[in-house]
Structure formats: structure tokens, C-alpha cells
């Protein structure tokens, strides 16, 4: 089991990653898969911008444009942003709280495979008769009407990835509640851990409504029920509610971990402890709570009535308060610090004004009467890209540079990183700032083209030029990653030199058991305290001894594969049946669909039964092995 420096065969590396339950390797899986989908979503974004660059463009047809915007949104939110955040959560949280792994390593692996196979499932729609085309929100009236199987791919695929996300959420909450090292009280946890905790709690409460909503859609489209079919009594508003009950917390699920990354980056590179730590924690929790009480602000124009709109408008504006607290705390953390302008820090500095702009337009839309004007215009597009790109993606890029050494024990090139930064941030503002005005001038969102002479030409061209800059920035980033991996120049403990929290106290590469001895935490910024008091050596909380680690397992992959297969069965089940909705009733029948559904579910159930009937007690890492590793590290340090 020991990770030896010996070169392993390609096959065994693949097998190792397919069966791994190690949170550090699962983080790498999330990073690779999430990065792949990020590039895919980026290509879709470029297609959108090329189509809109000039009026009356016929680069994409109207139908294809709908598919591209739907897949761009779905991919970026579910398959890129969230998994990439999971990558950093997995890479850092167990290390930050001083644990040897997460609470449920097996479920961690199940989560990542459900996400990967679900993501592949959705994207296979491109090759199997067309992608979903009802927007990432997939409002029921539109999605029930959409011909072909596109929407089915969306519904089933999201159901599979959603299950994975829910599992990971439960796992992180349990890990943070139960697995903290001695002395790591709640109010000493680094902000990254706190935001992960709150985001995971949001996942626990937000994903079940999505599951139900998706099931309603699946049942209507594939099994003949009538939740959304108005002629048999259905009600499409139910989908909007369920989707946004999930959808609004979702944006906080995305932004909170990004806040966490920035909090770490600011205090590390200002060489100061985070200003107003307890206010930061409190505002994180408050944002999480309010995040659940505002979903209907996406539905102001549905006609819910003035009372409902007023309540949700007020709650929406209230969220700006805790967010403002955070902004001021970050500024005051930087204030008077000895600042190092590393790439992650630059992203942080760009994030503050960008996110404030996105927040301000958010409050503007929170005013229900004004929202009737902004609704479904490019103003909305500009707003959510300012918060999602300016907040989440900047956070991901900062995190990528900041945590890269922790994950791979090499450093990304700072020079190329700064080139990426300049291109990306400049490109971002060029793309989206102008879209506020496009919206106010009246350009509706989700249209595949516009006429000449409406005054949209120049602005759209500017926007496309900015998007090209962002694409170049991502290319530079990929080159940076390739060069870094090829050079493979190893770095040692605390590569930034200013690490504050526990994860930087570990040798690099981090041993597979993380901590030879679980450390004793003596205060906030545990590693910083020991640097000042103890020459950077953590005090152990236990004597050197054998300890327990979980076994690898292929079962999570098999369980996910079963659901993946069953998904195709469900998908084709209604094809050509007389009871089916008109969108699929004319298609050819697939008598094998039912069998596929049964076989897939049987595979999953079989894997689950195997898992519960077998005793999986894990194995022990011996004291001798740990001692050997420690000596080796000692020699290396000299």
C-alpha cells in the first residue's frame, strides 16, 4: 500500500485512481474532470460569442444556438465550477482540520464517479440526437415541449451528478463536525473550512428539492405522469419553484468556497491574520441561511403578486449586508499588511471591485418593480457573469495557483500566471461590462441573433473581442500547466513561505496518511503560531503509533456505472409509446430500454449489497513505516 517512488505502469496508475479513496487523489480527479468540462463550457461560450459578434450571423442556427447556451450554462455550473471547488475542498479541508482522511472515504469516491459519469452522460447528448435546448433552467413548459431526447439527457444526467454532490456534501459536513484534530475548535477553523461547511450544509438542503424537480420532469417526459401537463391538471410553476429553491442556494454553494479561498489568499499574502474572523464566520452562516429565503426573486415576473414579491425583494436586499461585511473585512485584512503580489493575490485584488459591481447590480434586480425592466435582458447576463466569473472563477484561478503546490508539489510559473491574470481580467471586463448597457438598451438574452441598425453592433463586437482575450488567457494557463508538469521541479514544505494554516505544515508531497502524528492545535492559524513559537514544528497530539486507513475499492465506480447504464434505459423508455408526450411519441420504439433500466439498477444494487455484506475493516499503517518516512524526509531536508 505504501506509495513508493518507483515508476508504476500506466495501467496500475489508472487502476489506482479508479479505486482510490484518498481525498488527495480524489481532489486530482475532480480537478482533471472539472478542468475538462471547464474547457468544454469555454468552447461553447466562444461559439456563442462568435455567433453574436455581428448582426444577422448564420454561424449557428437558432436551434443549435439554443443547445449551445443550454449546455454552456449547465456545464459551467454543474460540471465545471462545482467540481473544481470540490477539488480544492477535498485537497485542503482534511489537511486544514488535521485529519487523515474524510469521514466517509468510500462515499467520497462514489461522489466523484457519479459526477464524472453523470457529466459524460449529459454531454453524450451531442452525439445521440441533439443536446438539451431549454436553457440551463429548463422551465417546464419549454422542456416538456422540446422534441427529441435532449432534455432527457439533461434531467437524467443532472440526477446522477446531483446524487454525487449530495453525497459529497454530507461527507464534508460529517468530516468537519467529527474529524477535527485536538484543539481545532469551531472558532479556530480556517475560513476555507468554514465556507466548505456552510456550502455543504446548503448542498444537503438544496439538492433534495432539485432531485424532486428533476424526478417530476423525468416522470413527465419518460413515464407518462402529468405534473407539468396543464391539460391534465399540471402546473408548471412547480418546476420554477423547485428549480430555484435549489438554484438560488446553488449560487451560494459556488461563491462561499470561493470566499474561503480568497480569505486564505488575502491573509497569507498580506502576512496578517484575517481581520474580523468571527464577523467573517457569522456572515458566512448568515449568507447561507438567507440564501434559502430568496429564491422567488428569480420569479418576480411570474405574477406571484405584490405581497410575495415584496417579501422576497426585502430578503434579497438583506443578503447584501453580510456580503458587505465580508468585503470590508478583506479590505481591512490587506490594509497595512506586508503585501506580496503573487498571482493568487492579484486575482484576489481584482475580485473585490468586480464582485462589488456584481453585487450592486444584484441589489438593483432585487427591487421587484425595477426587475420587470431588467428581466430576461442582457443586464441579467452581465450581472450573473460578474458574480460567477468575477467571484467564483477568479476564486478558482486563485485557488489553482495557490493550492497547486499542495496538490502536486510543484509551482506554476508566476510569470505565465500573471500573463493569464492580465488577459483574463481585462478580457472579462471587456466582455461583460458592455453587456450591462446592451441589456439597458433592450437586447434580450437567449436570442440567437439581432438585426442590423438596432445599435447593438459595436457593443457585441467589443464583447466578443473580450471573450477571445479570455480564451487566450485560458490557453496560456494550459501551457503553464503543461510546462510545470513537464519540468516537475519539486518544492518542499511551505512553498509560499507564508503559510498560516495546518495544510502548509506538511511535507510535500503530502504522505498518503497526511499526518504521521495528529497535530495539537493551539490557536487560530495553527502553523503560524508554531512558526513563531516552535520553529514551525507542530506539536503532536498523540504518540507515534500504528494507525488505521481505509481500503481502496472499485465498487463506487461500479455503482456509478450501473446508474449510468440505467439512465439510458430510462431515457429511451418512452420513445414511441402511445402514452408518451408528443415530444417523443413519434420516435422509434426501443424495446430494450426497459431491460437496460433493470440491468443498470441491478448492477448498482448488486454493488451496494456487496458493499454491505462484506466487512471492510481497512488496514493499518505501521509505526515502522511512518518512522522510515520521517527519517527519509529528515535526510531530504538536509
Amino acid at each position, binding site marked *: 500500500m505504501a506509495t513508493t517512488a518507483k515508476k508504476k505502469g500506466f495501467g496500475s496508475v489508472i487502476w489506482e485512481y479508479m479505486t482510490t479513496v484518498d481525498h488527495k487523489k480524489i481532489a486530482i480527479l475532480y480537478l482533471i474532470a472539472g478542468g475538462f468540462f471547464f474547457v468544454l463550457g469555454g468552447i461553447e461560450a466562444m461559439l456563442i460569442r462568435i455567433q453574436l459578434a455581428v448582426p444577422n450571423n448564420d454561424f449557428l442556427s437558432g436551434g443549435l444556438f439554443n443547445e449551445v447556451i443550454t449546455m454552456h450554462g449547465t456545464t459551467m455550473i454543474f460540471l465545471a465550477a462545482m467540481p473544481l471547488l470540490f477539488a480544492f475542498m477535498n485537497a485542503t479541508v482534511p489537511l486544514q482540520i488535521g485529519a487523515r482522511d474524510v469521514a466517509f472515504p468510500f462515499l467520497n469516491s462514489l461522489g466523484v464517479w457519479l459526477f464524472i459519469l453523470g457529466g459524460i452522460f449529459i454531454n453524450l447528448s451531442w452525439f445521440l440526437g441533439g443536446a438539451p435546448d431549454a436553457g440551463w433552467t429548463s422551465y417546464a413548459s419549454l422542456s416538456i415541449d422540446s422534441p427529441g431526447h435532449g432534455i432527457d439527457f439533461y434531467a437524467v444526467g443532472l440526477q446522477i451528478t446531483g446524487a454525487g454532490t449530495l453525497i459529497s456534501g454530507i461527507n464534508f459536513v460529517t468530516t468537519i463536525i467529527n474529524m477535527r484534530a485536538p484543539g481545532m475548535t469551531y472558532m479556530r477553523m480556517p475560513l476555507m473550512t468554514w465556507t466548505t461547511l456552510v456550502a455543504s450544509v446548503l448542498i444537503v438542503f438544496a439538492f433534495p428539492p432539485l432531485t424532486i424537480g428533476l424526478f417530476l420532469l423525468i416522470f413527465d417526459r419518460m413515464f407518462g405522469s402529468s405534473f407539468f401537463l396543464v391539460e391534465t391538471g399540471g402546473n408548471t410553476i*412547480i418546476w420554477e*419553484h423547485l428549480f430555484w429553491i435549489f438554484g438560488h442556494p446553488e449560487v451560494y454553494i459556488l461563491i462561499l468556497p470561493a470566499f474561503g479561498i480568497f480569505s486564505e489568499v488575502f491573509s497569507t499574502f498580506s502576512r496578517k491574520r484575517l481581520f474580523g474572523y468571527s464577523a467573517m464566520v457569522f456572515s458566512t452562516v448568515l449568507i447561507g441561511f438567507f440564501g434559502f429565503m430568496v429564491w422567488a426573486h428569480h420569479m418576480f415576473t411570474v405574477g406571484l403578486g405584490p405581497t410575495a414579491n415584496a417579501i422576497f425583494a426585502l430578503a434579497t436586499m438583506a443578503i447584501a449586508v453580510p456580503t458587505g461585511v465580508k468585503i470590508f473585512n478583506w479590505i481591512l485584512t490587506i490594509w497595512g499588511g506586508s503585501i506580496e503580489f503573487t498571482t493568487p493575490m492579484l486575482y484576489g485584488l481584482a475580485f473585490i471591485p468586480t464582485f462589488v459591481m456584481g453585487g450592486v447590480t444584484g441589489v438593483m434586480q432585487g427591487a421587484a418593480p425595477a426587475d420587470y425592466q431588467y428581466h430576461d435582458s442582457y443586464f441579467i447576463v452581465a450581472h450573473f457573469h460578474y458574480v460567477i466569473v468575477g467571484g467564483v472563477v477568479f476564486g478558482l484561478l486563485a485557488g489553482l495557483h495557490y493550492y497547486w503546490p499542495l496538490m502536486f508539489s510543484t509551482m506554476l510559473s508566476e510569470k505565465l500566471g500573471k500573463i493569464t491574470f492580465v488577459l483574463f481580467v481585462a478580457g472579462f471586463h471587456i466582455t461583460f461590462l458592455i453587456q450591462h448597457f446592451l441589456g439597458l438598451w433592450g437586447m434580450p438574452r437567449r436570442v440567437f441573433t439581432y438585426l442590423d441598425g438596432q445599435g447593438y453592433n459595436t457593443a457585441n463586437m467589443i464583447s466578443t473581442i473580450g471573450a477571445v482575450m479570455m480564451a487566450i488567457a485560458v490557453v496560456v494557463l494550459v501551457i503553464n500547466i503543461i510546462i510545470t508538469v513537464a519540468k516537475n521541479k519539486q518544492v518542499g514544505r511551505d512553498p509560499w513561505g507564508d503559510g498560516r494554516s495546518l495544510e502548509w505544515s506538511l511535507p510535500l508531497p503530502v504522505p498518503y496518511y497526511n499526518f504521521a502524528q495528529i497535530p495539537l492545535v493551539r490557536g487560530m492559524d495553527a502553523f503560524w503560531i508554531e512558526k513563531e513559537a516552535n520553529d514551525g514544528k507542530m506539536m503532536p497530539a498523540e504518540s507515534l503509533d500504528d494507525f488505521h486507513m481505509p481500503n481502496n475499492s472499485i465498487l463506487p465506480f461500479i455503482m456509478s456505472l450501473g446508474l449510468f447504464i440505467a439512465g439510458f434505459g430510462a431515457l429511451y423508455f418512452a420513445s414511441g409509446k402511445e402514452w408518451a408526450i408528443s415530444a417523443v411519441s413519434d420516435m422509434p420504439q426501443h424495446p430494450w430500454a426497459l431491460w437496460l433500466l433493470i440491468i443498470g439498477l441491478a448492477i448498482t444494487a448488486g454493488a451496494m449489497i456487496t458493499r454491505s455484506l462484506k466487512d471492510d475493516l481497512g488496514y493499518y499503517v505501521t509505526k515502522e513505516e511512518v518512522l522510515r518516512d520521517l527519517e527519509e524526509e529528515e535526510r531530504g531536508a538536509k
Partner: protein
Amino acid sequence: MAEIKQEPLSKSKLEYLRTQRTKEMRQQMVSFGMMIFLTFVAFGMVAMDLDSRFVIPIVLFMAVVQVILQFYYFMHMKDKGHEFAKLFIMTGMYFGIAFVVTFLYITWIGSPI
């Protein structure tokens, strides 16, 4: 991953534990009896066709009481170490009530509030 820290229990300690558990079992029996009673009353009230404005709140209240009994006595939520469980379940219930209320009042375009 520590080993079981349980020291062998002395005879009197064991005895005490046993009586505690029997006592708890008695509480659980009582709450079971109450649940049966509440169910009976609820079904009875509905079967008797009383005024629905009177019955609905009472029936709902009795359901809540039953659920509290179930959580606190059957699922041991009254014991120590269940603080986070209370927090999570109550948060879930709070959000759940919010969902139900919005679905009852603002799903119909015909009658906006």
C-alpha cells in the same frame, strides 16, 4: 481511530445502567401509548365529521406532537450528543415549512397574493 476506551463496568455501575435503560424503555412505552392515542383521536375526529375549521388545526397539532415524541424518545434526540442533529432537523423542518407555504400560496397565477 482509538481503541474502545470502555473500562470494565463495576457491578453496581452495570446495575445502574440497566435500570436507566429500563426507565428509558418505560418512557418509550408511554410515548408509544400516546402516539396510538393521538392517532386514534385524530382518525376519530375526522370520522365524526366535525367542523373542519376546528379539526384541521387540532389534527395538525397532534401530528407535530407525535413527530416530536418520535424524534425525542424513539430516536433518542433528548440524549446528549444530539445537538447538531436537532439543529439540522429543525433547519430542515423550517425550510420544509417555507416550501409548503409558498407552494400553497404562490403557485397559481390566478390568485396572486
